[in-house]
Every structure is written in structure tokens, then in C-alpha cells.
């Protein structure tokens, strides 16, 4: 088991390494560089040369990659192109804000999704199931900017219960975001619940139709005990990976929602950096998002190994 985790971890690190190379090469391949972006029309002749020298852009690509990745390992992504700010300072608060938003959505969303999915499965083909399933389809099909705009219209403009958008600066205390970020969190929760709920519902239906649930019934096990002890643990296994994908998507910065609500998270920073052609910042954010995806999926893999005895001993045998 331990060796298995170590191996998965090593594979994850290799993946992140490959991603860093791809990101670096991708940015390299773009026409222009940080200097042309900053100097804009003045990016000719001596000014350009000088700028490149100060930013270290005329050294070989390999050296620059080494310096970049070395810094990134220490949490130092260098300086941003236009503002001459430290990227780590710039990104730090944004990461925290995105985490804050994700935590809000996840802490409500995951338990809600599990409950709704289980309930829909147990009341399959009744009005409960139809209501929940239709709701999920709706939440998944309406684009998030439409849903966000509608929510703003209803709750912020018509009812006036919550502020429409976030005006708090990025480096404010977490609690200061409080009433403002609710609508953004609600939009994310809706989407997330829809995905996870559908997965839980279908695997729960399979589990309830299985031979072992029939056997448990004929062993005289009470209904709710069957649901929680025999069916649910088995039904959750396939759901874990869907949950992981959703979590990664949330942590990686949800660009559209952050932009609509003007929320100072990683996603909006990415949009700003792209429109300002701030390539070092783009590089840094992409790297963070990639690492988050790898990390969360790794965690989900290990979690499902830990929860699924069949998978666990199979893996052991293969090894």
C-alpha cells in the first residue's frame, strides 16, 4: 500500500514536470515576449535590447527554464511583466480567495449532492426523482454566466438580499468577502451538485439492485441500515472521481463566474494577465492550476484505493 502511494506520487510529480515544460514551450512559441508586451510600440532597437537584458530574456531557453522552475519550487515565480510586482505576492491572495470560494461551495455542495443523489435513487421514478433529476439537467445545461446573471437579477436587484458583485479588494481579510461572495458560491454549488448528484444517483440505483442488497434484505437487515451500510459505501466509489474532478475545477479558478461577479480570485487574475499580455503571470497561474489538478486527482485515487478493498488487493497483486 505504502509503495503504491509512493509510486503514484512519483507519477504525479513527473506529470507536473511535463506540464511545466509544455507551458514554458507554449509561451516561448508565442510571437513576442514580456518585453514586447510592456514596451508595446517602443519595442524596437535599443530599448528592446535593454529591456531583454534587464529581464534576462536573451539567455538560452534552457537556462531561463531552469531559473523559472527553480524559483517556482520555492514559491517564487519571478516578477510580473507590466507592474514589476512579485508574482508570488500577486498570486498569493488570489489563490486564497479562490480557495475561499471553493471551500464555500464544497462544504455545502458535497453533502447536499450525496443526500439528493441517494434520495433520488431510493425514490426512483417517483416525483422526487423526476424533480431532482430535471433540476440537475437544468443546472448543467444553463451556461453559468446566464445562471449568474439571473441570480443577480433576482436576489440582488429585485429582492436586494445580497450585493450583486464583489467590490472588496483582493488582499482583504477573508470575512470581509462574506455577504458579497454568496451569489458566486451559489452558482458554483448548483453546477457541482448537479454533476455529483447524477453520478451518485446512478451508482446508488445499481447498488440497490445488486445481489448483495437483496441478500441483506433477506438476512433481515432493516432498510436504512442496508442503505447506509451495504449500498452507500459501494455507490460512493465511482462517485469519488467525479467529485475530484469537480473539486479540481473549483480550486483551479472558475474563470467565468469570477469575472461575472468581479471576484478577485485566480480565474480573474488569469483573464487580466492574458488581456495585459503578462506572460510570466499566465505561466505561473497555469502551473498552479495544473499542479492542483494533479494533486486532487492523486488524492482521489488514493482515497478510492483506501475505500475499495477489491481495487486495493488487485493493485497489490499486480505489483
Amino acid at each position, binding site marked *: 500500500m505504502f509503495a503504491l502511494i509512493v509510486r503514484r506520487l512519483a507519477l504525479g510529480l513527473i506529470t507536473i514536470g511535463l506540464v511545466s515544460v509544455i507551458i514554458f514551450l507554449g509561451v516561448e512559441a508565442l510571437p513576442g515576449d514580456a518585453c514586447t508586451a510592456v514596451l508595446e510600440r517602443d519595442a524596437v532597437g535599443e530599448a528592446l535590447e535593454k529591456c531583454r537584458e534587464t529581464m534576462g530574456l536573451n539567455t538560452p531557453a534552457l537556462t531561463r527554464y531552469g531559473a523559472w522552475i527553480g524559483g517556482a519550487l520555492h514559491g517564487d515565480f519571478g516578477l510580473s511583466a507590466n507592474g514589476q510586482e512579485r508574482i508570488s505576492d500577486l498570486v498569493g491572495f488570489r489563490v486564497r480567495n479562490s480557495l475561499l470560494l471553493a471551500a464555500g461551495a464544497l462544504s455545502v455542495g458535497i453533502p447536499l449532492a450525496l443526500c439528493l443523489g441517494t434520495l433520488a435513487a431510493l425514490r426512483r421514478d417517483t416525483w422526487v426523482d423526476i424533480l431532482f433529476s430535471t433540476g440537475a439537467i437544468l443546472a448543467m445545461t444553463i451556461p453559468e454566466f446566464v445562471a449568474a446573471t439571473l441570480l443577480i437579477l433576482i436576489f440582488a436587484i429585485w429582492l436586494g438580499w445580497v450585493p450583486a458583485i464583489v467590490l472588496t479588494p483582493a488582499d482583504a481579510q477573508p470575512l470581509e468577502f462574506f455577504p458579497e461572495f454568496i451569489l458566486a458560491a451559489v452558482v458554483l454549488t448548483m453546477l457541482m451538485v448537479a454533476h455529483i448528484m447524477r453520478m451518485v444517483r446512478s451508482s446508488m440505483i445499481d447498488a440497490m439492485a445488486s445481489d448483495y442488497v*437483496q441478500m441483506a434484505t*433477506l438476512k*433481515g*437487515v432493516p432498510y436504512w441500515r442496508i442503505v447506509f451500510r451495504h449500498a452507500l459505501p*459501494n455507490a460512493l466509489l465511482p462517485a469519488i472521481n467525479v467529485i475530484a474532478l469537480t473539486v479540481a475545477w473549483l480550486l483551479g479558478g472558475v474563470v467565468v463566474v469570477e469575472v461575472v461577479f468581479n471576484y478577485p480570485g485566480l480565474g480573474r487574475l488569469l483573464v487580466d494577465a492574458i488581456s495585459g499580455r503578462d506572460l510570466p503571470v499566465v505561466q505561473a497561474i497555469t502551473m498552479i492550476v495544473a499542479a492542483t489538478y494533479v494533486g486532487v486527482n492523486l488524492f482521489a485515487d488514493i482515497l478510492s484505493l483506501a475505500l*475499495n*478493498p*477489491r481495487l486495493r*488487493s488487485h493493485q497489490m497483486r499486480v505489483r
Partner: protein
Amino acid sequence: MANPPLIDIRKLCIGFSGRGGTILPVLHDVDLAVCRGESLGIVGESGSGKSTLALAAMGYLKHGLEKIDGEVIYDGVDMFARSPKELQRIRGGKLGLIPQNSGQSLTPTLRIGQQIDEVLHLHCTLPKALHEARAIDLLTQVRLPDPRAILRRYPHELSGGQQQRVAIAMALAGEPDALLLDEPTTGLDVTTQAHILDLLRELAVTRKMAMVYVSHDLGVIARVCDRVLVLYAGETVLIGPAAEVLRDPAHPYARALLASIPRLCDQQLPRALNGRPPSPGSHHHGCAFAQRCALATETCRTERPPMTAGAGSQSTRCLYPDRVSEIDIRGGGGAVPMVCPADSPPALTLKDVTIRYQRPSLLARLRHRALNPATVEGISLTLRHGESLGMVGESGSGKSTILKAIAGLLAPAEGQILLDDNTLLGTTVERRRPDQLRRLQIVFQNPDASLNPRQSVAEILSQPLRLYFGLRGEALQDRMVALLDAVRLGASYLDRRPGQLSGGEKQRVAVARAFAADPRIVLCDEITSALDVSVQAAVLELLNDLKRVHGTAFIFVSHNLAIVRVLSDRVAVLYQGRLCEIGPTAAVYSQPSHPYTEVLLSAVLEPDPDHAPRLLTEDRAELSPPERGCPFQRRCPVKAGAICETDAPPWQETGNGHAIRCHLPLTALQNRICG
């Protein structure tokens, strides 16, 4: 009857709602009564409603089914009238169930200990502190080795036989008065089956339980039951004492069923029962069996026969109980098996084939770590043109692995596979030429999994015909019809999809597909084990015909020794991926024989109340073959000594191509072990 019956089912009708709201019956007017200490066997083909009946006895109906009429009285009260609380108390407690497939009936995420503990918690008055001791005691009762370790295992970490024992232990945990068994040994090896039945018989006697035993296998019923109820299309057609029903059944269906079972001593193929039972819920006015009955008259088709007294103390649903003896019940009344001439040239040669599933990792190779013993090792065989070679052994004996290697689905680690005896075949399918692929075809065990459910029979058959022979249009159509005729299905089957066919029909389509390539060699992997006995007989007959007409060579893998016997010219016995014995069928099935062959033959259950299988060795799951010496050393009842653990046994020839691989001298193998 001195005491009232414990389970008393009266006029039970169960059905499902079809399209248009009509109710289609699955069980029709079934009566049965079982007293304490009595065991009743329920026999029927798939779809006869036998499992529905067993579950109904617990007051449980599968999704979509509903009770239409009748009562299921357990201990004086109707199960369907009880409250959910009462049902929970009885189920798993006084009324236990042993399910058909324990592997799937145990919750995969819970340890065995937790699952047994749950029953104790629900149904047992013992204080919690004693539960573990009780669980260990139960597992010891079902003769599981090292019960303490088993409590901590998960279901998938046990073998099929062990899972079945755990299910029995779990049923016993509730200290049942009555036990319902739904095909508890179907799918287990002969030896394991014999052990489990032995255990159940003993438990029934010591605990004085009422048992209802559902099975399609009359051999199993003969072994464990006092009385037998034969179910056909949801109706009781015959009920009577087991010995009488097995010796001289008073219903034509039961007689035909007996005749379709292959037996070890048979020289001829069993007789197939033609046609198929009416589909569940279809309406019929007369006798349900009339269409397939040799005695049927016009009256049979219009008038539903009542239960009447038959021979001995049986009651039968037949209008002519006096005439039933016209139907022969002896097995082996069918076709004479086709024999291949002994001098025909080789069609396939295996030289020292060794197969490993485990691939040595780079690290292990660098460190020169010793590999585990190979799954299959040193198999050398010759299959002659037109010959059928039977391969027998328990699960895990490597039979299917060898077939996969021959078919090119699995590359052997060492050794060669030659067509005839000169053309080296590529290790995998990609490395073989189309004409080599065409000459070797395989038919799999489960036609549900090997036929594409989205393709019609025509699409399935046309693929090999287009690929190998370039047939188009009318020629293609004619060839497909000819193939279907050869497997006794008409042209009308061309448009059907696998979902619309019965199990036997699907397997015939699979055979037709193999023959579409006009192969020289057909590999059959347990092709009848998923089928009902009556259908199985028809498939055996078909293979025999094909062998006669086309001169095709077969390798026939099965765990059913009786089937292998009637169909094979030669038989190879495998244990743990190593050959133990090989030779002409008659020689292998008589003396002298390898101790393992002896163990297998003794464990066979025959539909004969006087026949009892002998258990020569404990049944134990071996996960990997021993590193040295004889593969059978750990279970051999007549082990020669230390030499068995150190040296690989030599091949001893008895003449006529019969060879036994054992350290014991042939004279010692001459006598039947223990008897």
C-alpha cells in the same frame, strides 16, 4: 403427518404486469409443504419459476413481480401478511437463505467478520462480547480453515467454495428452523460441490431443519433431498419421493429431463429434449408440456391436466400416468459418438508451452529474483485431424488459459504452438496469417458476452464469411442459411438479435459463427456449462454431427466429466496448469489412473439415489502451484512420500498413448483408492 408443515405454500400465483396491464403469471397454482427435518428439492429449467418460488417462501418478490393469489404460510402465518418488522425478524433468523451466487451476494466493502456479526447482532441473543467467538465457531462448523483470518478478509479474497461456505455460516448464524437454498452449488467445481452438499446433508440431520433446495441439477437433488417437486413453466408437474422420482418418474417431462443428462458410464450421447418451454406468462390452455411431449394427444393441447396419482406415491400433472413408462429415462439413448481413426495426421501440436500471467518487473529482472511458478507449464500435446480432445480440471487448472494461448489471445512465455506439426504459429493473433486464423476458431463459455447484442444474427455470421471468403449478395445469404440449418436454426433467425434468442440458441449461433470460417480446429471453452441440461444435450448432439460431417478437430474444455467422456476421443487431465494424465478416453476413465483423476471421478454426482460421491481429498483453494515436485502434492490422498515435494513426477506409459504422471508405480495406481 404428525407435525404441521413449517413452510406451507398454498395455491400460489405470482405474475408480472405485461404491456397493456395484463398480468402474466410466472408461477401458477403451486402447492408445497415442508416439515421440520424434511428436505424438498425443486427442479426446473431456467425460467420455470423455481427461484421465484424459493424467494416467495421468504415473502420476497423481485422487482416487478406481484403476488396474484395464494398464501405462503410460515409457522402458521402468511408471510405476505406480516409487517416489515416481523419479516426482518424472521428473514435471516428462523428462515435462512443460501443464495445462488455467494460471490455477488456478499457486500464487497464489508469484511466477512462484519457481515456475520451483523446477523448475530440482528438475530442472536448472545451478548456482544461473545459474537466473535460465535462467528469463529460458525466458520469452523462449515469447515473453513483458519476462521480467525477469514473474519478479517473481504469477500473477493476468498475462492468460490469458501464464499459459499461463508454464506452457509451466515445463514446458520440466525439458528434457522428452515433453510432455502437457491442453486447453492451451481458454478462450483465437482469436488467443491460434493463437499458442500456433504456439509449441508450433515447440517440438516444434526439441526433438524426444513430445507427447500432449488436446483436444475437432478444429481444434486438426488444427493440431498427426501422429496422432489418438478416445476415446468411455473406449474408443479410432478411431486414425489426423491428415490421414486429419480428411478421411475411419473411425468413425461421429468423422464425426458433424466434422459438428457449425460452420465459417466454412458457410451452414447444423451437424448436431447426438443423445443423449449413456453415463455413465462404466455397463455396456454392445455398441458404446458404438450408441445414437447412424445405422448401428447389432442386432449393434452386443450385440457389442463389435474394432479393425479402416479406410480408409487408420486402425484403427476399428466392425463396418461399409465403410459409414461413408454418414455425411456436412461441416459445415453442419443447418437453414437463419432470416433476419429487413430492414425490420422496431427492438426495441432503444442511443444512445452509455458504461460505466465505475471510479467517480471524491470527491478526484479535486474535483481535476478526468482519468478513465481508459471500458471501453465510444459504442456505438450498433439491434436489429430478430426479428433476431439477433452480437457478437464477444476477451476484454476489452466484449461482456459491454454485455449487462449492456442487461439493467440495470450502469448506463451515459452514453447511453440504448431499447425499440423510443421507450421509455427505466431504467438498472438496479430502475428498470424489470415488463413491460419481461419483454421482455428474458438467458441466461448458465455454466449451473452461473446455475441454483440447490437448485431443481428446475419451480421454476426456474415463477418467471417466476408472476411475469409469474400462472399457477397446471394452467395452470402445462401451460406448463412446453410450454416443456420447446420446448427438447426432456420433462416428466420437471420434478422434476430442475441437478446431475442434463448441461451441454447445463442450458443448455437456462436457455434455457427465459428463454423462460418470453415475451420479445421474448433476450441470450445465450457460451451455447455451455462445451459440447461436439456439444451446442453442438443448442443452436444450438434457438435457430434459437425465432427462427423466436417471432420473438424475439437478441443473441448469442461469441468463436467460426463460430457467430456461422451464427446472426446482422448482426454487430458490438468491440475494447476500441469498435465497429470493423458490418453484415450476409455483408458483415462478406467484404471490405472492418476490420483487426481480419481478424485475428480469420485466426486461426480449422478442422478441416482443410490450413488454417493466419495470425497478423497479435502477441498482447498490453491492460489499458485508448488515451486517444485508434483503439482498435486498438497492435496494428494496417496502421496508417495518426500519425493513428491522435490522431484517432478515421471511420465509412465501404459500403452495405447495413455500416460500418467506420478511417482507411484502403475500397479499402485491400478487399484481404486479407498475402495
